[in-house]
């Protein structure tokens, strides 16, 4: 049975290797500098690059973070620092966890009903807000967990010195947990960078480099999906290159998260 456990673990690692290995192999074979520098050409034999999609994803994540990070941070601070003051804190924590598990396509439909229909067209704001909806519970819960790890003695010392509660939180507790809170934010960004379903009917997609969020917005994931499910081999190559770029981005973020977490633990 001991052997069975080892075998099962090796199976999982093998599957991981197969998936990642294949994606890296086809991605590396298809990646070229054109991918980063060119816009789609409209020709199927030579589709150009995905510069518009890379910038599109960056802008969407930026807009989503503008709303998602502050909201999540504040909620996390509430859940960790003020939870004894109000009976609503425990349900909010529970609901936060539950919201994190909502299928992302349902979030996309919410974005469509709330932000596409009234505005009259597919637009980047709807996509960004759908991503923000996914970010908020993740940021809130990780912030709460990280702030709870700050020793109580910090808070007590600060209060004993006469600081107000707000000052304690903002000047003492939060700075002590900065590394780990940033980790939580990076986790949320890594999660949201790979999302496709919420963008399918909110931001739709575009061939052009767009910076106006009132219009349909390109994104890396939707562009990869469009190319990969089509019949044209040149477009599929671009899709594979895009997947490699996406995976590298997520890998780098995850590595950074691990290293930050480890250095935070060492510092304590």
């Amino acid at each position, binding site marked *: 049975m001991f052997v069975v456990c080892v075998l099962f673990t090796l199976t999982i690692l093998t599957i991981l290797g197969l998936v990642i290995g294949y994606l890296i192999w086809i991605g590396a074979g298809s990646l070229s500098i054109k991918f980063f520098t060119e816009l789609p050409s409209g020709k199927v034999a030579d589709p150009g690059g995905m510069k518009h999609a890379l910038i599109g994803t960056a802008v969407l994540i930026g807009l989503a973070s503008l709303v998602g990070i502050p909201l*999540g941070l504040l*909620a996390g601070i509430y859940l960790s620092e003020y939870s004894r003051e109000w009976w609503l804190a425990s*349900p*909010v924590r529970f*609901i936060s966890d*539950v919201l994190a598990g909502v299928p992302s396509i*349902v979030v996309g*439909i919410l974005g469509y009903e709330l932000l596409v229909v009234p505005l009259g067209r597919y637009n980047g704001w709807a996509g960004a807000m759908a991503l923000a909806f996914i970010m908020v519970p993740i940021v809130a819960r990780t912030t709460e967990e990280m702030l709870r790890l700050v020793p109580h003695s910090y808070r007590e010392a600060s209060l004993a010195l006469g600081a107000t509660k707000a000052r304690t939180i*903002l000047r003492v507790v939060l700075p002590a947990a900065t590394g780990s809170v940033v980790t939580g934010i990076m986790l949320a960004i890594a999660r949201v960078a790979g999302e496709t379903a919420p963008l399918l009917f909110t931001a739709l997609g575009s061939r052009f480099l767009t910076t106006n969020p009132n219009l349909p917005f390109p994104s890396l994931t939707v562009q990869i999906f469009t190319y990969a499910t089509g019949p044209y081999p040149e477009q599929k190559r671009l899709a594979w290159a895009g997947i490699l770029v996406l995976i590298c981005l997520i890998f780098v973020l995850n590595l950074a998260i691990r290293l930050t977490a480890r250095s935070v633990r060492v510092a304590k």
Partner: protein
Amino acid sequence: MPATAPAQIELPPPAPPQSRRRREWSSIMQDRGLRLSSDTVLSWLTRGSSLAILGMLVTLLVVLTIAAVPSMKAYGLSFLTSSEWRPNELEQPRRGPDGKVVMEDGELVIETLPPQFGALPVIYGTAVSSALALLFAVPLSLGAALFLVRIAPRIKVSAPVSFLIEFLAAIPSIAYGIWGLFVLVPFLQGVEMSLHQSLAHVPGLHWMFYSTLQVGTSTVERPIAMTGRDMLCGGLILGIMVLPIITAVSRDVLSAVPRAQIEGTQALGATWWQSSWEMLRYSRSGLFGAIMLGLARASGETMAVTMVIGNNNQIVLSPFAPAQTMSSLLANEFAEASSELHRSALVQVALILLLMSLAFNVAARWLVVGKEARTAAAH
């Protein structure tokens, strides 16, 4: 002692007036009698954000319910039990009770059947693909969790192995979809075709390779084409995707088992497997919660499934037949829903999906957190 007058005590000069020092905002506010302090501001801001999270859930439920009302009114409960998903109108000649067409004034009477929406095939698709996913993932995950908790710490590989398994969770769904489409589908195509050649004649397995179809008044038996893009492929991909979450939560649950419990079994002479089994038995509610979390993730997964499941909105028992899940139906049809009723029916499907995933998540949290609270309380 000489009688001297007490010396004049030199007092320090008086403090400079307050106005010369920069005053803190809060003390200015206090002087003016204003209650608003940074304390209150932060307290209200954070409280507002928490309410916003509550609001998010409420908004989600309310908006989807309102948008689904037209479909709920049109189909009622039959939405959950009907297998007919037909977005177009059908023009048929009316038939009498004897099955012959009705003629009036020498012409056929054509009646128009309105669109019909029934969600049973996609509910079936989600249920079966999630079940297949768990069938594949649960044994592997539990084995890996035991490895991580009992074996890995001794050979110092727990950190790297944990990292690698959690990296599986970070891979975006569309990457799995692409891998599935270009690697798993052709592989399964080959496997299924050879299975078909060797096993299709076995009487007990007939249902796996043939399906019966009602065409008009006759029944046709068709061989199921082994294309690789079917329920089995969808289930396998989902299984791979839920491996990390079940492993991670199971590992956490198993590591919370008190050492005394394990040492007790070992003192009584248990083998490695027997003490592991005791660990699993002790934390069974937490493990069940981990499986529920995996189920929640599997049922809500969209992109990977859409690319490999074949997109056929029908109930066919064979795992080698194409199928459709609730999320892949939404991904395929929502953007181009042809009528208000169609879109409303799709939102109703989304609502069912949402309620299902909420139910699984709530049950999972209750099982996992509840168990930890009970363990903590007992010690």
